[in-house]
Every structure is written in C-alpha cells, then in structure tokens.
C-alpha cells in the first residue's frame, strides 16, 4: 500500500482539484482529507457519512469570579497573556496548560475539555474517504490529521486498497508535518508566482527535513511562463521531480461549481494535463519511472 500526499505551500493553488481528480482516476484508493482546517474535498466527493467520531480538543480554563480572591498569581504566571485585569480568561488565547489552575490558592479555576471537532468515515463514488471538521478556533489539528491518516490506513489494509490519497493542508506547520511524515511521495502543487516559488522552496525543505520524496507540478503554468521555467529548474536543483504543468483553464472553476472532479467533467486542456500528471505519479509510486 502506498501513500501519496498532495500539498501546496500556499493554499488555493489547485491542490484539492488535483486530489479530487486523482480520486476519480485511481481505481483502488482511500481518500484522506487532511486539510482539516479548511476541508473542501467533500464538496466534490459528496461523501455519505458512515461513522462519526468526536475529537477531544485541549483544555480551556475558566475562572469563577465568586471564588476568586484576586491574588493575581494566575495572571502573572500565564505565559500566553490569556487572563485580563478582571481575571477573565480569553478562551481564544488560552492554550490549556493548566498553570493558572496549579497556582490558584482559592480553587477558582476550572479546566474543561472541549470537543474540538469530528471525524468521519464515509463512502464516495470513488471509494472510502476519511475526513474531519475541526471546530473554529481550535488547536491540535496535527493530532486530528494523525487520526484521519491512521483510520485511512486501517481501511486500506482491511479492504486491500493500494493507495491512500491525502489532501494536505497549506503551510509548513503542525498539520502539514502530520500530513506528510512517512508518505511514499508528496506532490506539491504550486503556481508560477514569486510567492508560489517562495512557498514551494519552504515545503521542499520540509519534505527533505522529513526525508519524503517530493514531486512538483505547476498549475496555471501559462500565466507566467518565465516563472514556471524558474520553478521547474529550481525544484530539480532541490532534488524534487517535476511531473507536469496544468494550463489556466476556466473549466476548473466550472467543474467545481458542478461539484464534479475535473476528470469527470467535459474534456478540457486542464483535464488532459491532470490525467497526464496522474499517469506519471502512478508510475513513480509503482517504481516504474
């Protein structure tokens, strides 16, 4: 069983469009939406939810103003500036470390464990899918990603599925690290912009840091052919493999509006390009190229 993660340094480069197309093209895969922060894959895959699990988040402190003796210790010791002059906890700033609870001489602090989100096992027209919805203003997205990936692996093993396609998140922080550790390859989908190039560089460094083979494709390549060239040359220098370009094509948005994977939508230059990239990626995963 192979695992392929699709990421983009910057979001909005067409990563989910590519993932959905791959899901349609692969015939024996499990999909894992690990972009738990802004999960969009379900908009195209229309999963029917089979299992539903809640995901526990971190702790959040609250202070009971009746019990508080205004000694100020909690505020002094909290390293996250989460307690204000009136000894009220800013839930958004609180990291749930419990220091205020530990120092409070009056037992005025309560720590509660909130539900941070849900994760699901679903069926789609392209096979099983594991996905999640993180409630807003929550942390621990890396843990949720790990949970989604683990379940996807179990399903792949039980069903004899050959491939797990992971839709990763943008950036280089904890959810991305969780998305790409231990995969067989990471496909970075980028755009021919200065920002795209800069972000790609950081993701390739991250992939190298975790020893994951990297593949690169450039979306909307014709928007700035000079930048595309520079990106291709640069990725190869960094040891990544260039697997193709996708032209700017309004069909991509039309397919999204129709809630169809690009490869299910009418023939278009973008569709052709994505299919070609899929063939290349599959050969690389199978060790044939």
């Amino acid at each position: 069983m192979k695992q392929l993660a699709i990421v983009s340094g910057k979001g909005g480069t067409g990563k989910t469009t590519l993932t959905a197309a791959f899901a349609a093209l692969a015939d024996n895969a499990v999909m894992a939406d690990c972009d738990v922060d802004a999960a969009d894959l379900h908009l195209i895959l229309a999963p029917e939810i089979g299992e539903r699990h809640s995901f526990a988040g971190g702790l959040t402190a609250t202070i009971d103003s009746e019990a508080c003796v205004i000694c100020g210790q909690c505020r002094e010791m909290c390293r996250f500036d989460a307690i204000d002059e009136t000894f009220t906890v800013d839930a958004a700033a609180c990291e749930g470390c419990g220091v205020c609870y530990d120092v409070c001489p009056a037992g005025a602090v309560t720590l509660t464990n909130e539900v941070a989100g849900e994760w699901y096992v679903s069926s789609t027209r392209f096979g099983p899918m594991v996905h999640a919805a993180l409630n807003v203003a929550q942390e621990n997205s890396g843990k949720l990603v790990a949970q989604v990936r683990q379940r996807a692996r179990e399903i792949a093993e039980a069903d004899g599925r050959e491939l797990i396609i992971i839709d990763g998140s943008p950036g280089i922080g904890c959810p991305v690290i969780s998305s790409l550790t231990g995969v067989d390859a990471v496909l970075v989908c980028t755009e021919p912009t200065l920002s795209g190039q800069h972000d790609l560089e950081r993701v390739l460094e991250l992939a190298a840091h975790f020893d994951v083979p990297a593949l690169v494709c450039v979306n909307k390549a014709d928007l700035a052919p000079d930048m595309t060239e520079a990106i291709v040359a640069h990725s190869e220098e960094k040891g990544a493999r260039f697997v193709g370009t996708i032209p700017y094509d309004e069909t991509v948005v039309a397919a999204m509006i129709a809630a169809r994977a690009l490869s299910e939508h009418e023939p278009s230059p973008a569709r052709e390009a994505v299919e070609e990239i899929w063939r290349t990626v599959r050969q690389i995963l199978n060790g044939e190229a």
Partner: protein
Amino acid sequence: MIVSIASGKGGTGKTTVAINLLRVAPGEAVYADCDVEEPNGRLFLRPEIAGEYTCTVPLPVVDYTKCTFCGRCREACRFNAIAVLPKSVMIFQELCHGCGACVMACPERAISERERPIGKVSHGTSGNAGFVEGLLNVGEAMSPPVIRQVRRHVGRDGLVLIDAPPGTSCPVIAAVNNTDFCLLVTEPTPFGLHDLKLAVAMVRALGLPHAVAINRAGLGDRGVHDYCAAEGIEILAEIPNDRRIAEAYAHGRTAVEELPELRPLFEKLLRAIGERIAARGAA
C-alpha cells in the same frame, strides 16, 4: 488601529489586499506579516531590513543531580510532552508549549529552562511604511509564538495591517485575536464560500468586527454574494478578475503600482474599514 486580513482558505489574495491597502494608506502605516509559515509580503514590498532577532520558546531542562524521578512534572504537563523513565526524563520538544507547569511542579527544583530558537522576526521599512515579518523555522510545528512576537513588535500605534495565515485554527487566532477589524478575503467559488463560512464562524466566536472583500470578482458564481446578503455581512470591495493583476502578482509587483486605476478601489476599502472602526468606537 489594527486591521487583520484573513481568509479561511489560502491563495485567495490576502497578501494582495494587505499590500495594496498599505500602498494607499495616507498616514503612518505598518505591514506585519503573520503568515509566518509562508510569509510573502516581503516579495512585494522589498523592504530595507533594519534588524532581525531570533524568536525563542522556553524548553525545560532537567538537572539530574537533583531529579528523583518522582514523575510530578509528567503529571503537571497537559500536553503529554514529558516521559519519566527510570534513569531519565524525556521532554518532547515538538509537543512542549513552554508553559512552565513542570518547572512549578518539580519539588526538587530540578527543572530550569533554556531558550530554544523556533524562528525569527525581521523589521525595517518599505517606502514610507514600516515592515515586520515573522518566519518559522522549517520543521517547527508551532507558529503561534512567532506570530505573538510579531504582534508585540508592531504594537498598536498608527495603522497596522496584519497579514494573517490561512485557515481557522490556532495560528490564525494568534494573528487576528484582539485586532480592531478583520477583513475576510474570499473568491466567488464554492471552495471560497465554504471556507468563508468557517472564517465567519471564527471571527464571530472571537467577537471581531468584520466584513468581506471579494477577489477575482466575476469568476465563479454568486454563492458568496447570496451568503453575505443572507447573513448581513458587508462586502466592502470587489477586486476584478483581471489577468493583469494576476501577472503583476506573479512577478511580485503591487497591483496599484502597476494599474493605477485600481487605487480608488483600495482607498475606498481602507476608508470604509476606518469608518466601521470609528463607528464602533463612538457607539
């Protein structure tokens, strides 16, 4: 006033909006790049860097001449970042939040802290404007400490434009929490709409005054407009889907410098934000 510019989804044009607002700002203004995992503002603003410093988080260090392996530190740690073995205390730095609970809990005072570098903050100027940027080191999982450092650096004086990271979880919260206004940039597509809904839920949970700017207007469908109308969210600007803007962006050029006819759009947007903040202040 501090204005944060955010989007549920990446790549919707947050940075484009932030730098163009900076370029049309009449008075003292600072751009603060809080997208510390992938900061891009620098590519457009080409700042002159006046200085930079390392951003660190405290990491506990155990003194084995004092430690009795009692396990109290492990019990105190809410992040499961400590394992106490018969002859060693392991601290998993990627899980540690640097909260200091273990230091307080140790009865032998065996734990001290060292500063562990996780990124850096650079500051300087770009034209008349100030520039501050946070950069997370590759391989580091937690960006909020770097974001908080950038926020401390810029303070609250003048106009501060915060370029927030994408998403709705902890890094974004660190960037937008306690700002005076949050502008949500989106695209008029189903993905854009879905992620906008998450971003709206976030700013509502934080009680932040907010409005929407639509980028690449004309592309896609009317879903975002319908949603904003139904929810009573103001759309303060619509930036047209113009290939020339995309090309300027691709090469690291600012839209208002390349296409001066866009200036009024961003001037109007900035004024509208100022008026919304002033109205709230007066209320």
